[in-house]
């Protein structure tokens, strides 16, 4: 193949492929799912109650004349569907990874976009713990950004996990939050047909766009969706 004539990939595709490789090596199965999702899988199943602020109009795109439908605000809906199915099929323990487009109804600037890419993963088994979560994510970021990447796991809160954590990466002189994570909340396991007395698991989700920022120093995440080939530099 003549390399010079080959087209150039979008940077986020490159990152998604690299990320899929890393997670596949660790035994994760790739999951895909709908972008227009039911409120059940996007919110309720994930322990985000009806009156949770995340359901506010300013964050979520609701659909006109389609009650109970939203543009997914994370790809956790996909991994949630996947572990539900795996549970039904008796495929436990299990591990899934899903990278895809997600949507947030918010004003845009150089670090915020209405659409962006999220990497979402989960692993469920008898004794999957935060130590495993840390192992998987440390390996992932080292593979993506090099062995000298500096990471911290800090306390946080998301309705679908307990304990809840955040992953922070050192970027120049600053720390950048790149992922939310934690142990799946027993309510989530129950909602997905699993028995929290028998299994536990971790889940994580974070923007791929931010990895691109850290990895390559891309200054504005809005560049990703302009259809501008000047971005395809790698």
């Amino acid at each position, binding site marked *: 193949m003549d390399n010079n004539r*080959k*087209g*150039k*990939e979008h940077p986020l595709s490159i990152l998604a492929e*690299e990320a*899929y490789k*890393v*997670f*596949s090596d*660790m*035994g*994760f*199965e*790739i999951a895909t799912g*709908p*972008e*227009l999702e039911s409120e059940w899988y996007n919110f309720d199943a994930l322990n985000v109650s009806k*009156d949770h*602020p995340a359901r506010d109009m300013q964050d979520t795109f*609701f*659909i*006109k004349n389609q009650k109970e439908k939203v*543009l997914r605000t994370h790809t956790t809906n996909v991994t949630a569907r996947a572990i539900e199915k795996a549970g039904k099929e008796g*495929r436990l*323990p299990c591990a899934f990874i899903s990278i895809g*487009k997600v949507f947030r*109804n*918010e004003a*845009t600037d150089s670090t915020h976009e*209405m*659409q962006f890419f999220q990497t979402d993963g989960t*692993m469920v*088994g008898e004794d*999957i*713990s*935060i*130590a*495993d979560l*840390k*192992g998987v994510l440390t*390996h992932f970021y080292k*593979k993506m950004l*090099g062995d000298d990447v500096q990471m*911290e796991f*800090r*306390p*946080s*809160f998301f309705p679908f996990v*307990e*304990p809840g*954590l955040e992953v922070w990466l050192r970027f120049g002189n600053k720390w950048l939050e790149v992922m939310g994570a934690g142990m799946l909340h027993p309510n989530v396991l129950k909602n997905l047909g699993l028995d929290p007395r028998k299994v536990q698991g971790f889940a994580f989700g974070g923007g791929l766009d931010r990895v691109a920022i850290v990895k*390559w*120093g891309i200054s504005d995440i809005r560049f990703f*969706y*302009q*259809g*501008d*080939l*000047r971005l395809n*530099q790698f």
Partner: protein
Amino acid sequence: MKISYNWLKWYIPEIPKTEKLADIFNCHLCEVESVEKKTDDIIFDLNILPNRAHDLLSHQGIARELAGQLGIDFKDPTEMYKIPEPGSTNLKIEIKTDKCRRYMGRIVRNVKVGSSPDWVVKHLESIGQRSISNIVDATNIVMYDSGQPCHAFDLDKLEGEKIIIRLAKEGEIMMTLDGKEVKLSSVDMVIADEKNVLAVAGVKGGKIAEVNDNTKNILIEVANFDPVSVRGTSKRLGIITDSSKRFENDLSPELCSYAMREISGLLVEYGGFKFEEVIDVYPGKQEISKLSFSAGKISKILGLNVSVKEIEDILKRYNFKYKNTANKFEITVPPMRLDLTIEEDMAEEIGRILGYDKIKPKIPSIDFKPKENEIYSKIGQARNKLLNEGYSEVMTYAFRDEGEVEVMASASDKKFLRTNLTDRLKESLKLNQLNAPLLEMDEIKIFEIGTVFKKDKEEINVAYGDKKGIKEMSLDEFCKSASPEFLQEKVLPLGDLRQDLIEQKFKMWSIYPFIVRDIAVWVPENVSSKDVEKIIKDNMGELVVRGPRLFDQFKKDGKNSYAFRLVFQSYERTLKDEEVNEIMVKIGHKISENSSWQIR
């Protein structure tokens, strides 16, 4: 929430130095958004997590947390406040809605409205609040100190000495303290007298009973309201206040007693005020809850061996009342800690207090056989095929001016989801054709693989094209139409990571226009294109962002013709034709110095 170092010091005199404090917050509690150094204080802006807003939107809460984290003394403020000697009261409180869980009221007479003591002004200003008057400041101090919002009404502006907590009548109107008229609905909770609405409960006070310089007698409100109700009203009215933010996160009604004691104590200090008895109506009594957990389960969740002793040590530092029998802990949950309900909550509590850095990462190995994901494989195959054929990949916005699926209340003017990829791809093609010299592509060929949204379904499409036009079809169709060999090509996730990516950095482009110039030269047969290129390079200066790129060459009559393209662009300004012409002339001269070379 803005937190003053000096204010914390009241409660925890052994508070560590500020540099250490930011790390403690970040690693054990929540994110520090900023640290602001003032002349004699330091202000931390903490991003309090939603599950701790019950108790941490307050200086006392943060101080208590730090005392537990660090094992240092917490000075209980309760004893600090003098208890007034109250006279009898005629105040009546009637709660007509279950959305009000507790209402404490106290009449204070003979008040003198004026300026606040220095320390009050200082405390408020340190966290960016303005001092208003001694009465209003006292209510604010109590809120930022304990987390409990309080309110003061001018008693003489009330219709009698009776307070009614009820739902508003549909269309009822109230003028807020800042002079804004709000129209209420039948789900909004209000504080009223027999005639008027005095305040929107937990959200905003009304103008009618505003405390001003002439106020002589006041009514102090310390209450607890249903979080969902307050949030709903605050959202509907578009009014967010420090009070509504606290109520909507759910406060413990038990906090009211302390807050009433604190505000009374503050007002006693002003001197000369006459206090009446507190009326306390408390229909939504908070029950005492217990929580059981084991060291074994906590260790299993964290993936860290946590000993019974370590847990006991934490429980003691945090003043949890607990029993430890038969390897089970049972704690009495402090009323303010509404976040602690299940065993996993204690795993978080123990985990974050110990610090998640104590947990050693390990890569799990599980008995699970991943299957191939068909959609993903198809996307990968389609992408590979198009890339191999020279198409470059773009991603465009899912939002359009028109379509079949409409989103509600978008932050953008584009309210519809795309029904095709072609429309955006055309725009992308146009943009990239203009930039073709910068892209160093002879022909722009692009593709996108993405979801489109039809009235009742979404599907993944593939669109690709060039100047001749754009083709679009579903992913399935695309894969069907392709040759069978391409489908057999295994895609991801296989192979090693791309090593070449590690060192690469993104190079931002210039926002100024570029200028393209071509130069073609006849040279003898023995002269290579590299020789010509070198002369151009040595003389083209720093404004060339692409090139010289050899885009054409041929032989004729024992001579070589080489054509190079140069793209000029500045990162600071728009270039002028003349200055580029000058550079080209200079290159031309240099080339002509070789008598056997000729510019075409």
